[in-house]
């Protein structure tokens, strides 16, 4: 029984010019489809990661899940009790005028949870590796990593079963990122949390996720277990992404540099959205949008051409 399901979820944004300009210049309304018919099921207790480059729609999916955006089409169902979100920027997501204990206590107050507030806040701060005395301080007194710990304590305050994390460590230095990732997996084990983890960093994803979905231009192009995806990537885009990761081991393996860039989402390519950059594209790819068969949406894989 999944904890969360998305069925055919799409989200359009109206990026038309103002009404008067449209009328005078005879321009039509323009819609940008940020998320395009996404199906997902997140199981209890797992970490599902969504990866992709900027503009692929991964953050929009996160915002759709927590209800910050309403879907333009499709259905999202949540079978748990409560969900919370952790944002990328720990500088922008904490109110600078509030003391940390008020920030952490806010969900408890809003949700009218019956509990000893001071004790619960102290317990939450300890849980994320801060000291109970830190509750008296203001956010500016903390470093980026500590602020992200405060965000996590606030998210845990409402006793959620699902945490949606949008690039939670992208703004942090790498040694601090390791601290936060370790903390997150510890909390998951201890509290039985389910994570939807949005990231552009494939190495981070390989460390935290049980399953990974790869997004390109608003669509999920490949979805599979972390082991399968990183050892036997199937979709040409997934292969390209993995190839582009700098090789820290300095094995000197030859890399096929991929040309081209993500196309303008206002004018997505016909057929398979990846075909202009794909070395395996043929006429069918240019014409017909591949359907999600098994773990991957790709004509070349389906026809066993690659």
């Amino acid at each position, binding site marked *: 029984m999944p904890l969360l399901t998305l069925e055919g979820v799409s989200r359009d944004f109206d990026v038309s010019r103002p009404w008067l300009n449209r009328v005078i210049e005879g321009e039509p309304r323009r819609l940008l489809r940020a998320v395009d018919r996404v199906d997902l099921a997140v199981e209890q207790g797992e970490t599902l990661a969504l990866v992709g*480059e*900027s503009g692929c729609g991964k953050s929009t999916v996160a915002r759709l899940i927590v209800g910050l955006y309403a879907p333009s089409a499709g259905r999202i169902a949540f079978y748990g009790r409560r969900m919370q979100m952790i944002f990328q920027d720990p500088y922008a997501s904490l109110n600078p005028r509030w003391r940390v204990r008020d920030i952490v206590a806010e969900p408890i107050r809003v949700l009218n949870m019956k509990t000893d507030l001071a004790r619960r806040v102290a317990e939450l701060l300890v849980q994320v590796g801060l000291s109970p005395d830190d509750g008296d301080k203001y956010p500016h007194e903390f*470093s*980026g*990593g*500590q602020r992200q710990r405060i965000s996590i304590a606030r998210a845990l305050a409402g006793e959620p079963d699902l945490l949606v994390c949008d690039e939670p460590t992208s703004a942090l*230095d*790498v*040694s*601090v*990122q*390791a*601290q936060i*990732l*370790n903390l997150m*997996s510890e909390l998951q084990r201890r509290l039985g949390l389910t994570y939807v983890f949005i990231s*552009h*960093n*494939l*190495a*981070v994803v*390989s*460390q*935290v996720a049980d399953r990974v979905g790869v997004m390109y231009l608003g669509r999920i192009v490949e979805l599979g277990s*972390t*082991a399968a995806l*990183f*050892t036997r990537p199937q979709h040409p885009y997934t292969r*390209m*992404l*993995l*190839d*582009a*990761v*700098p*090789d*820290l*081991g*300095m094995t000197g393996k030859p*890399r096929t*540099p*991929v*040309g081209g*860039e*993500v196309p303008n989402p206002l004018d997505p390519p016909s057929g398979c959205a990846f075909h202009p950059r794909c070395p395996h594209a043929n006429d069918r790819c240019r014409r017909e949008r591949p359907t999600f068969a098994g773990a991957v949406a790709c004509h070349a894989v389906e026809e066993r051409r690659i």
Partner: protein
Amino acid sequence: MILEVEDLRVEFPTRRGELTALDQVSFQIKEGEILGVVGESGAGKSITGLAVIGLLEPPGRIAGGEVRLEGRRIDNLPREEMRKVRGRKIGVVFQDPLTSLNPLYTVGQQLVETITTHLPLSRKEARDKAIALLKEVGIPGAEARLDHYPHQFSGGMRQRVVIALAIAAEPVLIIADEPTTALDVSIQAQIIALLKRLSAERGTAVMLITHDMGVIAETSHRVAVMYAGRIAEVGPVRDVIHAPRHPYTVGLMGSIPKISVERQRLAQIEGAMPRLNAIPPGCAFNPRCPKRFKRCLAERPDLMPAGSGAAACWLHAPAHA
């Protein structure tokens, strides 16, 4: 030697006294060599780059040491003189291409202006050179693109334009400060390949400043690891990555997530880098160091030979071994 930096010290006067942002920073870059400078935010890597090109924001100032370009001292040049050196001899690439490009001029106008300022070419010749430069950095349709404005380029293409500008006057040194940080991985790989090719073909020395060890591994010959305003370790990239000598580098390498199928706990360095006004006595890394001993608390280590490079760590002092 193209660039020699010796005992560089940068200070920022504040109401509570001088803050030392850089101390005893020394390194060299030779022709065709790429030196990676890596460190976490606040380690002083960008300040080092700015000090070399004479663009420290006042009240920051060079308080000691020397910077020499092709053997000529440049840290004490008058502003106007330094401006010429910067344009002609040193090319600069910053993280955000939009801050380096003027939004009100076409890419061609900016290239031609740079070229005619520094090289004895007519406008027509400069225009031809601009087209050749755009081709060299891999911009398709260079002739037509010359008349486009920066906003008409994508992020990756903009960074290519900035690189074209940086090499326009045929500099001997390029300083690239986080040139790929704002870009997606596939574009990042393209820009890395471009920088490497240009340095190899033109023999340009490159100082590549980044927080990303992966980028350094892909591009650099040697790497300097910075911590709290000083160089903690310097050496050939392969050796620093595979056999780091300074405990900070060891921790840093361990905390970088690698693509792997097994989930494992990342090695982490406890705590955070000290602020500049609270650098501990002795070795700046000692409060976080798993291997500290008595001497580390009292005496500050200078760079000393360690393996094929050098590390500022008492573990490598001859007396210790």
